[in-house]
């Protein structure tokens, strides 16, 4: 049975999963919830995703939610398909710890601030609501405060989890692109943050991201 990806085609967290499916060339079928009916808040959706969010996958009966968990599952299950996205030796405790460190860095130090800006300036806009300037300012301050850390990290290594590309680099794509679209230069300021810019240019120009960043294709 083909893997089923349950998400809106434009949901940022759904796109995070889709880019990996494309990078690894894994066949899938997109199943979009009925947005108007708020299907993702329905009892039947909650059976699969207890937080009423998207995405979740149904991999031949195995249901999994949290985009970053889904990504790791795909990267591991299909390790030998498409682009390698794991450390070379997955029995290397230290390499796997650096991977976990990288996953945690994105969720702790990027997502809250980038997500905060996106929530106010993009998602609220979609819902016809106004951005709250106080929350925007707070998130902007938070984001700027982290950039030195990312610059330091990427000055020592090529990618987020070491010198090889891993799935963690892709975690940044949806909000990173969202911030670019809003006119922020956090990830593109070559003079101020040359290593961030170098890394972002490479990761964000991957074909797999071009394929899904506007809208997740209905299938692969």
């Amino acid at each position: 049975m083909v893997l089923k990806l349950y998400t809106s085609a434009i949901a940022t967290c759904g796109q995070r999963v889709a880019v990996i499916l494309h990078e690894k060339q894994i066949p899938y079928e997109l199943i979009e919830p009925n947005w108007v009916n708020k299907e993702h808040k329905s009892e039947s959706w909650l059976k699969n995703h207890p937080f009423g969010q998207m995405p979740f996958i149904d991999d031949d009966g195995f249901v999994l939610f949290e985009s970053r968990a889904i990504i790791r599952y795909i990267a591991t299950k299909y390790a030998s398909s498409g682009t390698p996205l794991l450390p070379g030796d997955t029995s290397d405790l230290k390499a796997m710890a650096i991977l976990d460190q990288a996953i945690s860095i994105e969720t702790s130090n990027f997502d809250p601030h980038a997500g905060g800006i996106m929530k106010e300036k993009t998602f609220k806009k979609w819902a016809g609501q106004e951005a709250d300037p106080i929350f925007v300012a707070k998130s902007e301050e938070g984001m700027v405060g982290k950039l030195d850390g990312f610059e330091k990290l990427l000055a020592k290594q090529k990618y987020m989890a070491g010198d090889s590309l891993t799935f963690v680099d892709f975690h940044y794509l949806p909000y990173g692109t969202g911030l670019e679209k809003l006119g922020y230069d956090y990830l593109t300021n070559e003079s101020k943050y040359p290593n961030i810019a170098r890394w972002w240019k490479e990761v964000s120009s991957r074909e797999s991201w071009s394929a899904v960043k506007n809208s997740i294709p209905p299938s692969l």
Partner: protein
Amino acid sequence: MVLKLHTMPWSAGGRRVALLLHEKKVPYELVEPDWAAQEHKSEQWKEKQPFGQVPYIDDDGFILFESRAIARYIAAKYASSGTALLPDDTSDLQAMALIDQGISAELSNFEPYVAGLVVEKLIKPLRGAEPDQAAVAKHEATLTEKMDGFELMLSKRKYMAGDSLTFVDLIFCPYGNALTKMGYDHLTNESKHPNLARWWKEISTRETWLAVKDTVPKSFLV
């Protein structure tokens, strides 16, 4: 060389790591940064932890930060020591995926809102600042919704990542403790959230958590 845990003893992340060390009976030594001098913001500290945060560990020269990553590293490295905190079969893709799901759910759906409330209700008063009531209301509303999700998760399985205890459950301890300390009953209201209450009662009364919940002990030598 004994593992060095670099953190302030009251740090939530520091206590999270200490809990794992105690559960797995791993000897360690607490190395406190000079708080008054804001040592964790120094350039020297940032050589090890580029974001100027705590904790980080130095395991015989191997530097690792992000408390949840450290927790997993300890659980994996010392798999055969102390409490079993990983799935029985770590090559079981689905079991490991549920671990990742649990870690992600804690970081996305629990931590930000509890930490937000901690800032307003515990940290700001310490500094003589007024809590931002709008922020409190926002965090409370979202948290209430999220806790319903965790209740649903725990209605299907005994623990956060399956039917056995794993390090994922322990990751919740510092902010779970803070939530209860602030007077919220999301984790203790047996009529409203019976599964959360059942789970939290078990996790929060572990001897190892009681040993570290207020402050990281200076050392732990088996």
